[in-house]
């Protein structure tokens, strides 16, 4: 049999005796590692049951994750109101799906709505008011809180980052100075400090009666730090752009904002996209730091569940489950970014 697969295998992996030896050693190591891992994860694991007693084997006890699943997703969000979170989630998925379809009619309009109307609608669905029961943010938690933190901090951080990047390259000294100070300050402070100060010091120095929600403070803190990083990523894109682009646009008599919007940013953002995705992934993972101010995101709620005396010794299960969700989300983001880059590259080549 002369299949091209076999051919490739021979060429790539077994070309010389040394290559063959290395391949075999690697295969052996993978086999030795993956067999016990798979046994623990799947074959010896317990899937069905309702309590700790169901888990007798040596494998993972996924019953724990099953029993706690809705808590990992919604936190302490009141059960009768959880349909609202589901709708918000469905909206999010539907919008993302529709936007990735390039032939969609009114795609531009939907894109604008997805960053203006939809976040407000999401906030209304999750928080309530105007006919819906109000669910305080302290009851939010789990994956839902992680997503809320990431999305809303991102919605603030991206435009702010772009403005800051432009500001840092501005000819007006005051704007340039302000941007530099903002960026250097927020980039220089550890995120955990920012969240801690926003959550604890702010209420102390604020006049009493003036209360900003704890979650909102955490979102703002995260957004400012990420905006500073985003600004530097965007600045990299701006700097990679030849001066000639701006000069040519100026020669055509275009104004500053028009040049940025039509000429500079579309090209700069394309270059900066990988770096910006990087910041976004970092933001997603940094949301776990809100645990320090007792907001229970996915990781926080998993850790809190570990203290349950009815479910002793579930550390591995909880962390593997939370880790898997984080990994899938980050992987999805980086895949999206790669596809986007490819498409933009194609557009650029045209």
């Amino acid at each position: 049999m002369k299949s091209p697969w076999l051919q490739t295998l021979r060429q790539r992996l077994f070309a010389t005796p040394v290559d063959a030896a290395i391949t075999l050693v690697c295969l052996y190591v993978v086999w030795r590692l993956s067999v016990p891992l798979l046994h623990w994860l799947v074959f010896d694991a317990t899937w069905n049951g309702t309590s700790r007693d169901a888990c007798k084997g040596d494998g993972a006890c996924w019953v724990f994750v099953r029993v706690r699943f809705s808590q990992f997703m919604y936190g302490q969000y009141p059960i009768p109101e959880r349909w609202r979170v589901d709708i918000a989630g469905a909206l999010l998925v539907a919008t993302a799906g529709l936007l990735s379809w390039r032939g969609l009619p009114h795609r531009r309009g939907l894109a604008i709505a997805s960053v203006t109307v939809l976040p407000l609608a999401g906030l209304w669905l999750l928080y309530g008011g105007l006919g819906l029961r109000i669910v305080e943010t302290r009851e939010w938690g789990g994956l839902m809180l992680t997503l809320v933190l990431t999305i809303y901090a991102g919605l603030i951080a991206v435009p702010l980052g772009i403005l800051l990047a432009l500001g840092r390259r501005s000819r007006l000294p005051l704007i340039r100075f302000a941007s530099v100070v903002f960026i250097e300050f927020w980039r220089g402070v550890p995120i955990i400090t920012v969240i801690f100060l926003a959550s604890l010091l702010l209420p102390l120095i604020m006049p009493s009666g003036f209360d900003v929600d704890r979650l909102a403070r955490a979102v703002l803190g995260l957004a400012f730090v990420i905006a500073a990083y985003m600004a530097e990523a965007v600045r990299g894109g701006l700097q990679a752009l030849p001066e000639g682009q701006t000069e040519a646009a100026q020669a055509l008599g275009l104004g500053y904002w028009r040049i940025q919007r039509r000429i500079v940013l579309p090209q700069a953002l394309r270059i900066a996209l990988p770096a910006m995705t990087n910041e976004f992934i970092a933001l997603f993972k940094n949301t776990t730091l809100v645990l320090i101010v007792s907001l229970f995101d996915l990781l926080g709620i998993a850790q809190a569940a570990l203290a349950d005396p009815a479910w002793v010794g579930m550390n591995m299960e909880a962390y593997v489950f939370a880790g898997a969700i984080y990994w899938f989300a980050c992987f999805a983001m980086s895949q999206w970014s790669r596809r986007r880059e490819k498409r933009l590259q194609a557009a650029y080549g045209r």
Partner: protein
Amino acid sequence: MKFYGLAAAAACSIAGSLIAGPAMAQTLAPSETLDAVKARGHIECGVHLGLPGFSFANDKGEWSGLDVDYCKSLAAAVLGDATKVKYTPTSVQQRWPVLQSKQVDLLARNTTITFSRNATLGVNFQGINFYEGQTFVVRTKAKVTAVKDLADATVCVAAGSTEEKTAADWFRERNLKITIINFQKNDDAISAYDQGRCDAYTAGLGALAGQRIKFKNPAEHQILTEVISNDPQGPTTRWGDERWQLVVRWVLNAQIAAEALGVTSKNVDEMKAKSTNSEVRRLLGVEGKFGEMMGLSNDWAYNLIKQVGNYGESYERTVGMGSALKLKRGSNELWTKGGLLFTPPFQ
């Protein structure tokens, strides 16, 4: 501060007698916190992030524990409904600022009462609802009943921990020999004990109780009731608002007094109707107007006993024999039964 307090009290009593006349002859100091609690309709209780037996939220988000029961008792006393509590889980770093910035009305979370905290942090401790202290977990078959029985034993500890120092000092002072085996991490010391490398492992009562159920066979281990350190814990308020402090303090005292007087959630109605003991009658609001003196209704203690139970009921349900932790009462037994738990009289 004192001057303003006095001035305010004086102004209030004058205003009170002018406006309300003789009906308000019993003047109450103003209480910002109590007014705020009544206006918003629930207590904001700062609790631990998650410590089984003390404050812990289960998979349905329902809180339970000894400290949580205290919060519920307070809600029952102040608002007549034990369910009117909202919990703010607080981390170690966060607890004091959260209390000071009035995000919570009080802390009921495992926090050791110390002089320097009381003197410098602007907080007051309103009594002791759990006498925490360092002790040992040993194997049941080892026939150890007191700490001194551990002479010539080996103890697993985490290197450099306060527990190591406390234990070493305790045995040195008594001229008892003990072998301490150091481990890099706490978890290593625990598993070494579980595997039989040491005769005992040492930590605080609450931590040990949580730890014991994680051992391979919890029934083979017991926790000594004797403690070698002194880490009392109880509800904590910020400075100022003396009347709120009064309420917080006497709700705890009412839990303890109810146990001492034999009033339980089951017999409280009968006691209220039939008891001839005048302290019971005062506690349950049959005699005197103790609730009104604090600005509460007179059935404040009745409500908390009926809805949450006395201290003993609460202890057994959360950390005691009726719970997974199976902690004996030890120091947390009533003073009349050889423990340290004490309340001044309701007179």
